[in-house]
């Protein structure tokens, strides 16, 4: 899980891509797990949750980076949380206005974006130390990385658990849904399987690099 954690000194141009790939919040850093597991039982829910979180992340990154020089160090965490809570309230009302069904499906988890460790983590470890432009890049990268992680889980769980993808039936009538994947245990199993997959890939890559070293 700690593949990219030590790469704190990143170059300017990599802020965006790093969030998406190398330091993906879901698969590499394993941050913000609660919404990742809770609302990813369908693709649509995962998409909505991902977009909402990405928006809050981006906006809070911008604001935190703008006010970083005025806020005293002792009260910074509280200030960050209040900034985040403000944007979450905005998103909460926005989703309610766009689609009431979606709001009902996501339930309290929209409000719970406030306590997503990923957002506070980025505010504290990145936006409070860097300028606005880099913070925007970082927010976008991390947000999209998080969205991809949610979609990976949501799509697998919807296809296996319900036989549909974004509500479109894939297998026809005869498909016997794997109901447990839609239920809470499915979330744990799917995430574990994805982590296993990425572990396997990174191990294979490390092995290959080692073989090349030896061949030289």
């Amino acid at each position, binding site marked *: *899980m700690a593949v990219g954690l030590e790469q704190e000194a990143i170059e300017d141009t990599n802020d965006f891509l790093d969030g998406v790939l190398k330091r993906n919040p879901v698969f590499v850093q*394993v*941050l913000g*797990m*609660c*919404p990742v*597991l*809770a609302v990813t039982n369908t693709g649509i829910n995962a998409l909505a949750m991902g977009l909402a979180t990405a928006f809050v992340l981006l906006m809070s990154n911008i604001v935190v980076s703008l006010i970083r020089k005025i806020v005293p160090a002792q009260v910074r*965490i*509280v200030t960050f*949380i*209040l900034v985040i*809570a*403000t944007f*979450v*309230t905005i998103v*909460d*009302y926005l989703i309610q206005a766009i689609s009431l069904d979606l709001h009902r499906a996501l339930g*309290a988890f929209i*409000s*719970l974006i*406030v*306590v*997503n*460790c990923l957002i*506070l983590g980025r505010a504290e470890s990145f936006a409070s130390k860097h300028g606005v432009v880099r913070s925007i890049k970082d927010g976008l990268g991390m947000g999209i990385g998080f969205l991809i992680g949610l979609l990976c889980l949501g799509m697998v769980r919807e296809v296996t658990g319900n036989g549909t993808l974004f509500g479109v039936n894939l297998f026809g009538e005869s498909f016997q849904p794997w109901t*447990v994947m839609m*239920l*809470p*245990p*499915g*979330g*744990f*199993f799917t*995430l*574990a399987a994805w*982590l*296993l997959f990425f*572990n*396997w890939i990174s*191990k294979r890559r490390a092995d290959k690099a080692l073989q090349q070293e030896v061949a030289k």
Partner: protein
Amino acid sequence: MNDASLWSIFINACLVNNFVLAYFLGICPFLGVSNKRDTSLRMGAAVTFVMLVSSMAAYGIHLLLLWVDAPYLELISFIAVIASTVQLVEMFIKKMSPALFKALGIFLPLITTNCAILAVALFQTNRSYSFLQSIVFALGAGVGFTLALVLMAGLREKLELANLPGIVKGTAITLTLAGLLSVCFMGFAGLFN
């Protein structure tokens, strides 16, 4: 007003809809501090205490905000109350048991961003529980959280002796275990309606 009985609220929050294993709330400390049974028990106690205090405070805040007609401030005031409660608990533990303070490490201040605690405040408001119901609900949620944490710690202590292939080690196997535990807790479904 919600007319569910206190006992059913407790069992529901603790077992049937366990916060960690059915709602996925508080996964970070669940994966982070569930290495040792001893630490996890104390962590559970700390979380339960914060839940109880913030649940009572949230009930008052909800009434106050209804009175001044500003429901959009709910989220912000809830989180502010939780943050100060955590600060209180932190000072208390630091004074009473420096060893425990060290063992809990970063996860103590992170109780603030433990979704389970904010969720208690939000759920009790959504379900319009009375004051007494709210307290029982918070207690049930806290006990459920502790139960899941301690069970997980017990499993992980055994896991350390198991011979696992390299790529499974770490988060992947822990999540699989959590999934199995969650399957077990699904057995409680239908205990109450």
